[in-house]
């Protein structure tokens, strides 16, 4: 267990997340960082319980599955937040264009 560099793992995982969600990374970084840290803490604890034989190998795998599932949920949410951000930006641009055209025409036509 001592051989696992969890700090490096966190850094690498954050690096991948930053690349994948680059367009809106600034907004989601605190959330991603918090959840990845918590994920790694739990992975450390699972390893500790396995080493102490409090849980067997099958239980360790089941616990890991739960943790991985929770991270998949987090990344899906980040993807959703990104889509909402893009959607909001596009609709704001359309609103600007609509207002500009309406002002130019002098009627509320669009």
């Amino acid at each position, binding site marked *: 267990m001592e051989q696992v560099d969890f700090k490096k793992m966190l850094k690498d995982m954050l690096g991948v997340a930053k690349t994948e969600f680059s367009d*809106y990374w600034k*907004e*989601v970084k605190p*959330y991603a960082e918090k*959840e990845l840290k*918590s*994920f790694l803490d*739990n992975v450390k*604890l*699972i390893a500790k*319980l396995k080493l102490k034989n*409090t*849980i067997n190998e*099958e*239980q360790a795998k*089941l*616990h890991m*599955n*739960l*943790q991985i*599932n*929770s*991270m*998949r*949920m*987090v990344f*899906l*949410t980040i*993807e*959703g*937040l*990104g*889509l*909402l*951000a*893009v*959607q*909001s930006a*596009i*609709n704001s641009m*359309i609103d600007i*264009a*609509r207002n500009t*055209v309406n002002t130019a*025409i002098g009627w509320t*036509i*669009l």
Partner: protein
Amino acid sequence: MKKLVLFKKRWLLVLSLGILFSCKVTLISEYDEITDKKITELQEKTSTVLSQLEDEIGKDNYENYKKFYQEVRADLNTLEIRANAIDKNQITINHIAILKSSYDTLESLHKQKINSLEELNIIKSAFNTSFIALVKLQMAKKQGKTN
């Protein structure tokens, strides 16, 4: 005649812009109050059971919780059907599929007995993270923003 052609062209341009600008772009489903309510109910139910398990560490008590797992499966099926009926809702559909897998895993762990508080805390943490992820997206949809 020339004026008439110009007039028609202008109206065509206005009509085209109208079509272009009159519709909102939708990349992800809108907020759904019933989905949100069902998620909160499921979270409360799960939280209650995980708290009860705190007092029963090391006990072989799976049989007493069979009903809980049956109810959760029914709740998740209801959520899944609703999520599938909503357009552009793939993220929530995927969320629910993962949650189903997590409850199956919890059930397998429960069948083998939860032997320590540390073990239970890891489980609680995974479910908290999952429900926060679900609720965070629902809230963002409700507010229409990203954070």
